[in-house]
């Protein structure tokens, strides 16, 4: 897609900052952190659901990015590259959490936002009983239960609205696979949220 003059100028500035950072210029790297921190944080928050963990992991993401800068080839956009590192961190975090869960600590207990729904028994007519906020909580819970790679694909495409090519680059798969992941994720969510989405069909999947 053709880029506007402003976008090209912005990219040129960013490339200059990356080159300076690669040669050890910390001020340039600080600027890159400042530019990209919020977006990386937002992605991690959507993946993990906790402010503190997302903030810590976002910082760790930039620390790793500093170490890996010499390997950054500028083939992907810098933001995409950062997102890929963030995704690895989120997956590690998920594995660690799963281990903790295995040792008795329930995921719902760590996130009171989600645990309220997890503990509540389904109402006979949830569509009437649940307000919009409760539906959001149900969606958040269902999202948190998706396998990380499906969750990542859905967050990147369905919530952040990225192109499939970029989703593929971040998750390290082909665009067609990224599309399949998004479809699988949607199918699982639709099944999980069928009572709230007004599905009359068993399972509610498409």
């Amino acid at each position, binding site marked *: 897609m053709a880029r506007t003059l402003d976008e090209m100028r912005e990219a040129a500035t960013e490339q200059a900052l990356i080159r300076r950072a690669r040669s050890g*210029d910390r001020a340039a790297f600080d600027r890159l952190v400042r530019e990209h921190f*919020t977006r990386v944080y*937002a992605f991690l928050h959507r993946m993990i659901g906790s*402010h503190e963990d997302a*903030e810590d992991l976002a910082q760790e993401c930039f620390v790793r990015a500093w170490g890996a800068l010499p390997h950054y080839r500028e083939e992907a956009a810098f933001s995409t590259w950062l997102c890929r590192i963030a995704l690895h961190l989120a997956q590690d975090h998920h594995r660690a959490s799963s281990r903790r869960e295995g040792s008795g600590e329930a995921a719902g207990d760590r996130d009171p936002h989600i645990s309220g729904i997890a503990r509540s028994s389904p109402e006979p007519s949830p569509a009437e009983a649940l307000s919009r906020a409760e*539906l*959001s909580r149900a969606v958040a819970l269902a999202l948190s239960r998706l396998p990380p790679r499906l969750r990542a694909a*859905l967050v990147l495409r369905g*919530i952040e*609205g990225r192109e499939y090519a970029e989703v593929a680059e971040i998750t390290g798969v082909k665009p067609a696979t990224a599309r399949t992941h998004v479809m699988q994720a949607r199918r699982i969510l639709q099944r999980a949220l069928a009572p709230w989405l007004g599905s009359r069909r068993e399972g509610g999947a498409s």
Partner: protein
Amino acid sequence: MKTCRELRSRILPAVDGSLSIEAMFEFEEHLRACADCRERYEEARALDAALARLPEPPVERVDVARAVARVRAAIDRESAPAPRRATRWVPLAIAATAAAAILVAVFRPRSLPAPAAPSADRGEPTMATESPALPPATPEPVDIPLDPARLAQAREEVRCLLALAAERLPAPGDPALPAELASRFDEGSRDLERSRWPVLRLVEGALGDPDPAVARAALRYLGMRGDRLSIRMLEGALARPQSLVDAALALCDAGEAGLDSLAPAVRDPRASSLVLARVSARGGPGAARFLEACVRETARVEGSRRGSARLLEEIDALARTGTSAVASLLRLGSDGTLTPAEVIDALARTQGAGESVADFFLSRPRGVDDGLVLQALAALQPSRALPLLEKRCLELRERRGQVLECIEAYGGKDGLATLLRLSASGRIAPADLEIPILSTLSRDRGAGSAVVEDWSRAGRRVELHVFQGFLFDHPVSASAPACIALSGSDLVPSSDRRWAVLLAGETGIAEDADALAELFWRLKPAEKELRAACLIAIRALAGVDRIERVVDSLPSRTAGRVLALLAERDARTRPASTASRLARELESALAPIVP
């Protein structure tokens, strides 16, 4: 004919907007016929809406400046030499450590012991230290008994380190951050920190140093730290005339953390230009808010004498903060601090303002005048803002009415083309688009024909078909020029072209006869049905006199027959059945000129 199963695979692309218009048409046609697929599609859309309504991550809780500092500190920690691992070969390790200690003692004469003397009961003066935010290795706050001689020695060491670091100060006027100064000082003062010396207090002591380079380095170092205690020290230095400018620069170095303390510097003529330039170069929402407050304050002080060079400089600085300035400028215009013209002028100089104003319009924050946002949006590169609004219109259902109003406010060819594309997408109820399209057509009668000509050149058959359907369903005066343009397009079937001409004759105004006459002469002689329709329409709009001028250059026998046919019957009052007979007669009158 595609099967239900094949079309079902289009549900996801249809929901996430990656389906072509043609495929969407086909898919929606199928949906009308297939209740099962329709239900699946509605479920997918319900999930999409639920995802869109998920709360946004709380980015407002993120302190980016602090995050930058923490990343920096973590990198520092990682790049520091790793502590030696305990080895099983203990005797050798002990020997090596002892040898290292001897070497350090011999070759590092300036090495200082910890501030706490071995005997804390000597009644020596104490210095309360505060734990700064950085670096993380900083000790907890403690009251440390001090040995005056050691304190003097520590002060001297800090002074020397500052004098050395001052070599790395950016040249006067260079807006770069003194990052190297800070890292060099941090490197040099690591031992003092480890020995629990209150390095920050020692740096504060150097603020009044007789050597201006040392004092300047101390100020800029505090700015780079940017923690609360450093900012407080800089506020003190800002109040002293001799250090005002450097303290102001240091507060600029501190980024967001220093902004709240900068107000006195902006009011001082020695520092104001420097500060405005630095703050705007750093950008970000905090900088924009700070500059917005400056503009408001200056405008308030100047009152009716508004318009000084200083106010203009502040507005300019605000505009240079980039997209963060958009909200500030619109607020300043909404509360009357700036005129709409001043706001739009500043926005025009703001990089990326077009999309931001559109976002701003969609978010509808309180305290901002909608009319001003629309004015700004129409002024700022509509060609970039319109596609954005189109995309948003398809994505967001809740605010669709507002977005459509905004596109309608653009009007003209671009606005109309956008509305028609939305109609062609099939994703918006036709009733929602009816008024915006009709209102755009009647405000600019030329917009419809311009859109038809563009799309005919670009071969956009589907969109033309949608527009044609709309025009035929809405026979109003404003649609006549577009109907005439449609009848001249090769992409429209000939029967529809003829109907478009007759419709223009029914609904148009006298001026439309010129366009019809032009079309009449552009048509090939063989297109006699269409030419006949043109004549009927011209007769209806502008009378027989106008026909005489049109047929003037036809062979005299043909022209005479045409005129006779049109003159003897009043086309305006004839029922439709006789109008079509007249058309047939005209066609036969025109037939002899076909080669």
